[in-house]
């Protein structure tokens, strides 16, 4: 759906909203359905209609609740019944600087202004705690754009009495709260409005006639920004960037122009733009985006180009490099297979309209943004489409890139062994399996919301749910970490059981695709069985709910020795394992149970 890709054509999106919506809904996408409450300090109707399109594009099908006009604070704090009944999966607090209640006056002392700032902050935090308590769902809060006018001129950002300074202080408070609070996220409209320009942001006529906090031309930018956060919250962020080389990573064609003929580096006008792009993707790699190459080139030329001394990247920054003359669609499928990630977690950047179209036509899943010939357009496409938005900077994210690289090493190793068991033994795997611990709540939540393939039920949970399971006597929740001689894979497996009468029912069982075929599922299940026996329970019940992506585990219960008990209406099935039938298998992993 190009029409929702950056650069956004607001006129088309505004006019054709209904038609675009119909098209999106008609696609065969397996949408994640979410209830989203949009609580407005200004009008929400048109905003919500545009937001719906961008959410659908990201794979989320929203049902909306909209507050009464301007009632965002009251509806939360007084827990309006309609909102409570709606029971949102997510709340967007759609405010703007029109919603700041009291502004400082030039006559007030610094201390008086400080207490005003405090009362504004208190009003916000009172609302946030009320929301957390009543709804326990993620909250996205707009911060505040700067006021259009400055009564003190440039001093407005210096004096305590300046409105600019006042807004900046409130924004800082919003950011600090978000840093502490795991399920609270900032929608940074202060950034967005500066990026687009405040003059383009606020439209006095639209405010006067319809009480919209910003101009129609801004709706797509705003909606895209919010949709990116929502997608990140529910684990739908992209993971991997697939890059063409010639005229993407450097100017020119390395096969024709040679290493010395291509433009990269600070010494040429053209080369500088490509260098900026290399720096940009290098930084993405450092924060966990997996970098790969798909280029029509000889492999030696590709490697030489990536090692260009004036470039910012090196060949080791890339987990997979596929340089050959096969169709790009085929190479992209192979990249996804090699990394063991879904095709829909890929973003493909290529300057050639032909290659973009070839990939769009031949592979379902990857995002292929429209770009121009200029490297700055690649950066903007990645930025503004919000592909790699993340909700926290987790150690796992930073480590991810190296995990995929070591995975590639393991694959090479695997080829040297004729017997898979010998290969597994050679890995010297060690697993730490334990009941949930608070330091891992965040990672467990992330894994639960991101994992699609090895996932029996695809139940999604928030951090507070996880804390709840950990404390619940009737729940048996364990995680698994796996390391081997190539490196630490981190926390990669989760198994949650809920006691129901005389049975332990498996509510959630999942494992990261990083560690497929390593037998960790057997080790996890073995520890789970041991705990179940300690609780004096003799039967385990498993549920399999099929989705588009979890085929790899469709026979898992059977493989584990369960008997099929009954078929469910949704195509799923229930399985039982009487524990006297259970036999532990030799999984070649040294387990430390904590």
């Amino acid at each position, binding site marked *: 759906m190009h029409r929702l890709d950056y650069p956004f054509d607001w*006129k088309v999106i*505004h*006019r054709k909203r209904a038609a675009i919506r119909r098209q999106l809904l008609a696609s065969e996408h397996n949408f994640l359905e979410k209830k989203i409450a949009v609580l407005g300090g200004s009008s929400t109707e048109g905003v919500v209609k545009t937001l719906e399109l961008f959410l659908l594009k990201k794979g989320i099908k929203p049902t909306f609740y909209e507050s009464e006009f301007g009632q965002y604070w009251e509806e939360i704090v007084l827990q309006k019944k309609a909102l409570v009944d709606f029971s949102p999966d997510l709340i967007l607090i759609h405010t703007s600087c029109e919603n700041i209640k009291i502004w400082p006056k030039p006559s007030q002392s610094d201390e008086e202004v400080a207490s005003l700032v405090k009362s504004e902050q208190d009003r916000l935090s009172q609302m946030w705690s009320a929301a957390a308590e009543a709804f326990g769902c993620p909250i996205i809060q707009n911060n505040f754009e700067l006021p259009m006018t400055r009564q003190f001129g440039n001093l407005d950002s210096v004096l305590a009495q300046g409105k600019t300074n006042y807004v900046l202080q409130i924004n800082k408070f919003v950011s600090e709260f978000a840093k502490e609070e795991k399920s609270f996220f900032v929608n940074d409209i202060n950034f967005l409005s500066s990026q687009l320009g405040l003059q383009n942001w606020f439209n006095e006529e*639209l405010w*006067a006639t319809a009480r919209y906090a910003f101009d129609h031309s801004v709706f797509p930018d705003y909606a895209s920004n919010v949709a990116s956060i929502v997608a990140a919250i529910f684990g739908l962020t992209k993971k991997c960037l697939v890059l063409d080389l010639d005229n993407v990573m450097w100017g020119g064609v390395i096969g024709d122009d040679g290493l010395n003929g291509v433009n990269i580096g600070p010494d040429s006008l053209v080369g500088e733009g490509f260098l900026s792009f290399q720096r940009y993707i290098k930084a993405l790699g450092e924060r966990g985006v997996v970098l790969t190459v798909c280029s029509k080139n000889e492999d030696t030329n590709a490697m030489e180009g990536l090692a260009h001394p004036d470039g910012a990247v090196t060949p080791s920054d890339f987990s997979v490099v596929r340089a050959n003359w096969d169709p790009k669609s085929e190479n992209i499928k192979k990249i996804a297979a090699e990394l063991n990630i879904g095709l829909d977690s890929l973003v493909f950047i290529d300057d050639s309209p032909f290659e973009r179209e070839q990939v769009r036509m031949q592979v379902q899943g990857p995002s292929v943004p429209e770009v121009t010939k200029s490297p700055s357009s690649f950066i903007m496409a990645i930025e503004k489409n919000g592909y790699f938005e993340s909700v926290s900077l987790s150690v796992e994210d930073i480590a991810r890139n190296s995990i995929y690289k070591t995975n590639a090493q393991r694959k090479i190793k695997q080829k040297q062994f004729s017997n898979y068991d010998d290969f597994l033994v050679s890995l010297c795997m060690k697993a730490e399996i334990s009941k949930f611990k608070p330091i891992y709540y965040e990672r467990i939540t992330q894994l639960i919301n991101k994992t699609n393939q090895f996932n029996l039920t695809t139940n999604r949970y928030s951090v507070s749910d996880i804390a709840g399971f950990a404390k619940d006597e009737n729940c048996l929740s364990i995680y698994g970490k796996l390391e081997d001689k190539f490196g630490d894979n981190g926390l990669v497996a989760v198994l949650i059981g809920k006691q129901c009468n005389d049975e332990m029912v498996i509510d959630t069982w999942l494992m990261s695709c990083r560690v497929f075929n390593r037998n960790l599922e057997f080790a996890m299940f073995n520890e789970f069985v041991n705990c179940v026996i300690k609780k004096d329970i003799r039967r385990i019940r498993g549920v399999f709910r099929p989705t588009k992506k979890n085929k790899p585990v469709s026979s898992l219960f059977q493989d584990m020795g369960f008997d099929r008990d009954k078929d469910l209406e949704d195509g799923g099935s229930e399985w039982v394992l009487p524990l006297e039938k259970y036999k532990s298998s030799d999984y070649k992993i040294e387990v430390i149970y904590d």
Partner: protein
Amino acid sequence: MTEDEIFVKIKEIFQDILDDELLEIGLDSTPKEIDGWDSVVNIDIVFAVEAEFDVKFGLEGIQSISKVSDVLRLVKSGLEK
């Protein structure tokens, strides 16, 4: 641009925004007669028309809209400026 050409474009905007490609409107049609043309949709239409013709109606202009011919009149006077 002739009055007829302007009218056809306005009609297309009504059809797009109200998501009804068969929608027929006349110069005398009022919000009451056109299903879905409420105050919120009116603003959507106004801004789409302004963008299409690159004109501005102004607050007074927007307030003066009570039937389709008003939109046509505002576009015409905008284009003349």
